[in-house]
């Protein structure tokens, strides 16, 4: 069973979300997701300022095995993308919850966070 951090929120499409200060969240894919995907070799990240809604595709993770979209867990606009992934996409596999983060979103409505899965619910999903 791969790592699931108790302080994060999760989606059914295997993204995690961390609340930062000032209405901003950091988003990435879970340890389970990177394990299934295999070694990531290219990442397509969105433009900063892009408006996203829940479930919108935000970009593509291309691995040796398959290409998969990753999705916005929440409505808002993109305020930062992890540019380190351009040179080093393997960070997603090596440190999916830390240096392998994908994007930061400034959210429109904090109450949307309640609709996300907590660690226990996500554990059930992948268990």
């Amino acid at each position: 069973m791969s790592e699931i951090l108790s302080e994060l929120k999760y989606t059914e499409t295997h993204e995690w979300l961390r609340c930062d200060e000032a209405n901003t969240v950091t988003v990435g894919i879970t340890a389970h997701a990177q394990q299934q995907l295999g070694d990531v070799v290219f990442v397509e990240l969105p433009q900063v300022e892009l408006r996203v809604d829940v479930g919108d595709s935000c970009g593509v993770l291309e691995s040796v095995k398959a290409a998969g979209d990753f999705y916005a867990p929440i409505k808002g606009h993109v305020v930062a993308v992890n540019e380190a992934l351009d040179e080093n996409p393997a960070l997603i596999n090596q440190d999916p919850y830390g240096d392998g983060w994908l994007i930061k979103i400034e959210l429109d409505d904090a109450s949307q966070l309640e609709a996300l899965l907590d660690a226990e619910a996500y554990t059930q999903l992948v268990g």
Partner: protein
Amino acid sequence: MRKTPLFLQHQSANAVMASFAGWQMPMHYGSSVAEHHAVRQSAGMFDVSHMTVCDVRGADALAFCQRVLANDVGQCVIGHAMYTCMLNEQGGVIDDLIAYVMPALTSGQASVQHIRLILNAGTFEQDMAWLREQSQTFEVTLDLPEGLAMLAVQGPQALAICSAVLPAELADGLSSMRPFQTHCASVEGQDWQVATTGYTGEAGVELVVPAAQVMALWQALLGAGVQPCGLAARDSLRLEAGYALYGQDMDQNTSPLVSALGWTIRWQPERDFIGREALLAQKAAGLKEHLLGVILVDRGVLRHGQTLTQAGQTVGVITSGGFSPTRSVGIGLARLQKTVQVGDTVETVVRGKTLSLEVVKPPLIKQGK
């Protein structure tokens, strides 16, 4: 879902498992790219126990194999192996396999009594149905031995490590073996086989050993620094080496002559192998396609089924697509119209973007680069 004798070892090594051809197999152990590099730079090992071992024995063992296999086993002396296709009457590929002309464990054997075929796991049903049907008119037995495990150890250090780790009965002869040879020995009363064959493009061996003894062998190789490698690395390694994968690059409806496998067909001395007439007819009609390598000039990963164009016209399709960890580029094998030659540029569209590819003669890497 079947498990190989090394299933628990894979779990201990934190393998990410998936089902493949009805077997639970390790896809990778954390990073298929790291496993790939280990094979190119030192040594990696692959559990290939899911593959089919079929022992052909009897007075007609040689004659039978010369009939069903498109390459000529008659050209192999005892203790040698050969890569071949097994064709149907239409000249399509039922499977690709390695045939080993097995030495007897007691010396002094003059004639061929035993040929071992190692076939793909995914084609088990069609292979055995075909072999059984074709064997009706020959004095042979087809045996699927139980209780065996198979391990491939590949890489520049594979032979040295195996010489140190394998039982002396097998290790002793290893350093003098050339590629595509095979030795057998009795170890603690059980038959072990070693062959200098492989599917990675590196030197190495493939071992067929009793299941009861493979776990200790795995542990010993692990202790000697050999990296466990899964099916993902197996695929990226063979693709770099330009080796065909059955089911992707060719199948029952594909001729070896359009799959860069014409070299495996042995025409002389003249021999009535199944598929011969069909291949002759194909050659007479003129072959319109060939299989070549492609390398992405732009960033990306190639996938099976992607259409290739040249000057806006469709000229081919990707049969095997992937990524080369050695060169950090997308690579593939492609079936292309004969008008497209090595050195040409072709295009493909991925997620709305047009990408350029260079057509090359396989392998996709040279001298490990």
